[in-house]
Protein backbone atom coordinates (compact mmCIF):
# COMPACT_ATOMS: atom_id res chain seq x y z
CA UNK A 1 0.00 0.00 0.00
CA UNK A 2 2.64 2.48 1.05
CA UNK A 3 5.05 1.93 -1.87
CA UNK A 4 2.09 2.31 -4.26
CA UNK A 5 0.99 5.63 -2.76
CA UNK A 6 4.55 6.93 -2.98
CA UNK A 7 4.77 5.82 -6.62
CA UNK A 8 1.43 7.45 -7.41
CA UNK A 9 2.48 10.73 -5.82
CA UNK A 10 5.71 10.71 -7.77
CA UNK A 11 3.90 9.86 -11.01
CA UNK A 12 1.43 12.68 -10.43
CA UNK A 13 4.23 15.11 -9.70
CA UNK A 14 6.22 14.14 -12.77
CA UNK A 15 3.30 13.82 -15.15
CA UNK A 16 1.36 16.93 -14.21
CA UNK A 17 2.00 19.78 -16.60
CA UNK A 18 1.91 23.25 -15.07
CA UNK A 19 -1.73 24.30 -15.23
CA UNK A 20 -2.32 27.94 -16.11
CA UNK A 21 -5.28 29.30 -14.16
CA UNK A 22 -5.76 31.77 -16.97
CA UNK A 23 -5.93 30.50 -20.52
CA UNK A 24 -4.39 32.32 -23.45
CA UNK A 25 -7.01 34.63 -24.85
CA UNK A 26 -8.90 34.96 -21.57
CA UNK A 27 -9.67 38.47 -20.38
CA UNK A 28 -7.02 39.66 -17.92
CA UNK A 29 -8.56 40.28 -14.48
CA UNK A 30 -8.85 43.93 -13.47
CA UNK A 31 -6.80 45.45 -10.69
CA UNK A 32 -6.80 48.82 -8.97
CA UNK A 33 -3.83 49.20 -6.68
CA UNK A 34 -2.11 51.88 -4.66
CA UNK A 35 1.08 52.89 -6.44
CA UNK A 36 4.13 55.00 -5.64
CA UNK A 37 2.37 58.06 -7.09
CA UNK A 38 -1.37 57.53 -7.21
CA UNK A 39 -3.42 54.55 -8.29
CA UNK A 40 -2.38 51.89 -10.82
CA UNK A 41 -5.39 50.51 -12.74
CA UNK A 42 -5.37 47.95 -15.56
CA UNK A 43 -8.48 49.58 -17.06
CA UNK A 44 -6.52 52.80 -17.63
CA UNK A 45 -3.93 50.91 -19.70
CA UNK A 46 -6.33 49.74 -22.41
CA UNK A 47 -4.67 49.99 -25.81
CA UNK A 48 -1.17 49.33 -24.46
CA UNK A 49 0.69 46.06 -24.29
CA UNK A 50 0.91 45.47 -20.55
CA UNK A 51 3.58 43.29 -18.89
CA UNK A 52 2.41 42.53 -15.36
CA UNK A 53 5.18 41.25 -13.10
CA UNK A 54 4.42 39.84 -9.65
CA UNK A 55 7.42 40.47 -7.38
CA UNK A 56 8.44 40.60 -3.70
CA UNK A 57 11.43 41.88 -1.72
CA UNK A 58 12.15 38.35 -0.51
CA UNK A 59 12.31 36.79 -3.95
CA UNK A 60 15.88 36.32 -5.26
CA UNK A 61 15.17 36.08 -9.01
CA UNK A 62 13.01 39.24 -8.73
CA UNK A 63 16.18 41.18 -7.98
CA UNK A 64 17.67 39.80 -11.20
CA UNK A 65 14.62 40.75 -13.25
CA UNK A 66 14.43 44.45 -12.29
CA UNK A 67 17.33 45.71 -14.41
CA UNK A 68 15.90 43.78 -17.37
CA UNK A 69 12.42 45.23 -16.85
CA UNK A 70 13.89 48.73 -16.61
CA UNK A 71 15.66 48.06 -19.91
CA UNK A 72 12.46 46.78 -21.56
CA UNK A 73 10.41 49.76 -20.40
CA UNK A 74 13.02 52.18 -21.71
CA UNK A 75 13.33 50.37 -25.05
CA UNK A 76 9.65 49.73 -25.82
CA UNK A 77 7.76 52.30 -23.70
CA UNK A 78 7.38 54.64 -26.66
CA UNK A 79 6.11 51.73 -28.79
CA UNK A 80 3.24 51.09 -26.39
CA UNK A 81 4.65 48.83 -23.66
CA UNK A 82 3.74 49.44 -20.03
CA UNK A 83 5.36 47.29 -17.35
CA UNK A 84 3.48 47.07 -14.06
CA UNK A 85 5.28 45.53 -11.11
CA UNK A 86 2.67 44.22 -8.67
CA UNK A 87 4.30 43.88 -5.27
CA UNK A 88 2.98 41.11 -3.03
CA UNK A 89 4.98 41.74 0.16
CA UNK A 90 2.73 41.28 3.19
CA UNK A 91 4.44 44.37 4.55
CA UNK A 92 4.77 47.09 1.89
CA UNK A 93 7.54 48.76 3.89
CA UNK A 94 9.83 45.86 2.87
CA UNK A 95 9.02 46.59 -0.77
CA UNK A 96 9.78 50.29 -0.44
CA UNK A 97 13.10 49.37 1.20
CA UNK A 98 13.87 47.11 -1.78
CA UNK A 99 13.04 49.92 -4.21
CA UNK A 100 15.55 52.28 -2.59
CA UNK A 101 18.36 49.85 -3.49
CA UNK A 102 16.84 48.71 -6.80
CA UNK A 103 14.79 51.54 -8.32
CA UNK A 104 12.02 50.73 -10.79
CA UNK A 105 11.55 52.77 -13.95
CA UNK A 106 8.12 51.30 -14.51
CA UNK A 107 4.80 51.44 -12.66
CA UNK A 108 4.64 49.81 -9.23
CA UNK A 109 1.44 48.77 -7.45
CA UNK A 110 1.20 47.39 -3.93
CA UNK A 111 -1.03 44.40 -3.19
CA UNK A 112 -0.20 43.17 0.33
CA UNK A 113 -3.46 41.20 0.53
CA UNK A 114 -2.53 39.18 -2.56
CA UNK A 115 -5.88 39.57 -4.35
CA UNK A 116 -4.28 40.26 -7.75
CA UNK A 117 -1.92 37.23 -7.83
CA UNK A 118 -4.84 35.11 -6.67
CA UNK A 119 -7.11 36.33 -9.45
CA UNK A 120 -4.35 35.69 -12.00
CA UNK A 121 -3.77 32.20 -10.55
CA UNK A 122 0.00 32.57 -10.49
CA UNK A 123 2.04 29.49 -9.68
CA UNK A 124 5.46 30.79 -8.66
CA UNK A 125 7.51 33.81 -7.75
CA UNK A 126 8.22 35.78 -9.76
CA UNK A 127 5.46 35.41 -12.34
CA UNK A 128 4.70 37.58 -15.31
CA UNK A 129 1.67 37.96 -17.52
CA UNK A 130 1.72 39.62 -20.95
CA UNK A 131 -1.57 41.33 -21.84
CA UNK A 132 -2.47 42.56 -25.30
CA UNK A 133 -4.02 45.97 -26.06
CA UNK A 134 -7.44 44.27 -26.19
CA UNK A 135 -7.05 43.26 -22.54
CA UNK A 136 -6.58 39.56 -23.32
CA UNK A 137 -3.85 37.35 -21.83
CA UNK A 138 -1.07 36.52 -24.31
CA UNK A 139 1.24 34.53 -22.05
CA UNK A 140 1.93 33.63 -18.44
CA UNK A 141 5.48 32.87 -17.31
CA UNK A 142 6.87 31.56 -14.03
CA UNK A 143 10.34 32.25 -12.70
CA UNK A 144 13.13 34.40 -14.14
CA UNK A 145 16.36 32.86 -15.36
CA UNK A 146 19.12 34.22 -17.61
CA UNK A 147 17.78 32.16 -20.48
CA UNK A 148 14.29 33.71 -20.16
CA UNK A 149 15.34 37.25 -21.15
CA UNK A 150 15.59 36.68 -24.90
CA UNK A 151 12.40 34.64 -25.05
CA UNK A 152 10.34 37.19 -23.10
CA UNK A 153 11.71 40.10 -25.14
CA UNK A 154 10.74 38.43 -28.39
CA UNK A 155 7.22 37.82 -27.04
CA UNK A 156 6.97 41.53 -26.17
CA UNK A 157 8.17 42.49 -29.65
CA UNK A 158 5.58 40.20 -31.26
CA UNK A 159 2.81 41.71 -29.13
CA UNK A 160 3.91 45.25 -30.05
CA UNK A 161 4.29 44.24 -33.71
CA UNK A 162 0.73 42.97 -33.75
CA UNK A 163 -0.49 46.36 -32.53
CA UNK A 164 0.79 48.19 -35.63
Amino acid at each position, binding site marked *: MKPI*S*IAMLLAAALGAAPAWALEKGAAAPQFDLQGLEGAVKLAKLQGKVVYVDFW*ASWCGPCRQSFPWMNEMQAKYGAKGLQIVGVN*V*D*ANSADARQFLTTMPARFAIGFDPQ*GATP*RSYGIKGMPSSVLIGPDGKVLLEHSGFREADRAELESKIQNALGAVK
Partner: protein
Amino acid sequence: MKALLLIALAAGLSGCASLGNVQPWEKGTLARTEMTFGDGHMFTRFDDHIYTSREASSGGAGVGGGGCGCN
Protein backbone atom coordinates in the same frame (compact mmCIF):
# COMPACT_ATOMS: atom_id res chain seq x y z
CA MET B 1 10.50 -1.56 14.72
CA LYS B 2 11.49 -0.88 11.14
CA ALA B 3 7.81 -1.26 10.18
CA LEU B 4 6.92 1.39 12.74
CA LEU B 5 9.43 3.79 11.23
CA LEU B 6 8.07 3.17 7.73
CA ILE B 7 4.54 3.82 9.00
CA ALA B 8 5.70 7.09 10.54
CA LEU B 9 7.17 8.19 7.21
CA ALA B 10 4.09 7.04 5.25
CA ALA B 11 1.84 8.86 7.70
CA GLY B 12 3.90 11.97 7.06
CA LEU B 13 3.57 11.39 3.31
CA SER B 14 -0.14 10.69 3.18
CA GLY B 15 -1.08 13.51 5.51
CA CYS B 16 0.70 15.96 3.25
CA ALA B 17 -2.04 16.36 0.64
CA SER B 18 -4.42 18.15 3.00
CA LEU B 19 -1.95 20.34 4.90
CA GLY B 20 -0.08 23.41 3.89
CA ASN B 21 -1.75 25.03 0.92
CA VAL B 22 0.39 28.11 0.94
CA GLN B 23 0.33 30.24 -2.23
CA PRO B 24 3.57 31.30 -3.93
CA TRP B 25 3.09 34.97 -3.04
CA GLU B 26 2.59 34.11 0.65
CA LYS B 27 6.08 32.60 1.05
CA GLY B 28 7.93 35.67 2.31
CA THR B 29 8.50 34.32 5.82
CA LEU B 30 9.42 30.84 4.54
CA ALA B 31 12.11 32.43 2.38
CA ARG B 32 14.09 33.52 5.46
CA THR B 33 17.39 31.61 5.86
CA GLU B 34 16.52 30.50 9.40
CA MET B 35 13.29 28.94 8.09
CA THR B 36 15.10 26.62 5.70
CA PHE B 37 16.74 23.33 6.60
CA GLY B 38 20.05 24.11 4.94
CA ASP B 39 22.73 22.12 6.69
CA GLY B 40 25.65 23.41 4.73
CA HIS B 41 26.73 25.85 7.42
CA MET B 42 30.22 25.21 8.72
CA PHE B 43 29.07 25.12 12.36
CA THR B 44 26.62 22.30 11.59
CA ARG B 45 29.46 20.25 10.16
CA PHE B 46 31.74 21.01 13.13
CA ASP B 47 28.99 20.03 15.58
CA ASP B 48 28.08 16.84 13.72
CA HIS B 49 31.73 15.83 13.65
CA ILE B 50 32.13 16.40 17.39
CA TYR B 51 28.98 14.49 18.28
CA THR B 52 29.86 11.47 16.14
CA SER B 53 33.27 11.42 17.86
CA ARG B 54 31.77 11.34 21.35
CA GLU B 55 28.43 9.58 20.94
CA ALA B 56 27.21 6.44 19.18
CA SER B 57 24.38 8.00 17.14
CA SER B 58 25.13 9.40 13.75
CA GLY B 59 23.48 10.83 10.69
CA GLY B 60 20.01 12.16 10.16
CA ALA B 61 20.01 14.90 7.58
CA GLY B 62 22.29 13.81 4.77
CA VAL B 63 24.25 10.93 3.29
CA GLY B 64 27.75 10.50 2.08
CA GLY B 65 29.98 11.97 4.74
CA GLY B 66 33.14 9.94 5.08
CA GLY B 67 34.38 8.47 8.31
CA CYS B 68 37.42 9.14 10.43
CA GLY B 69 39.44 7.45 13.13
CA CYS B 70 38.44 10.17 15.55
CA ASN B 71 39.22 9.29 19.12
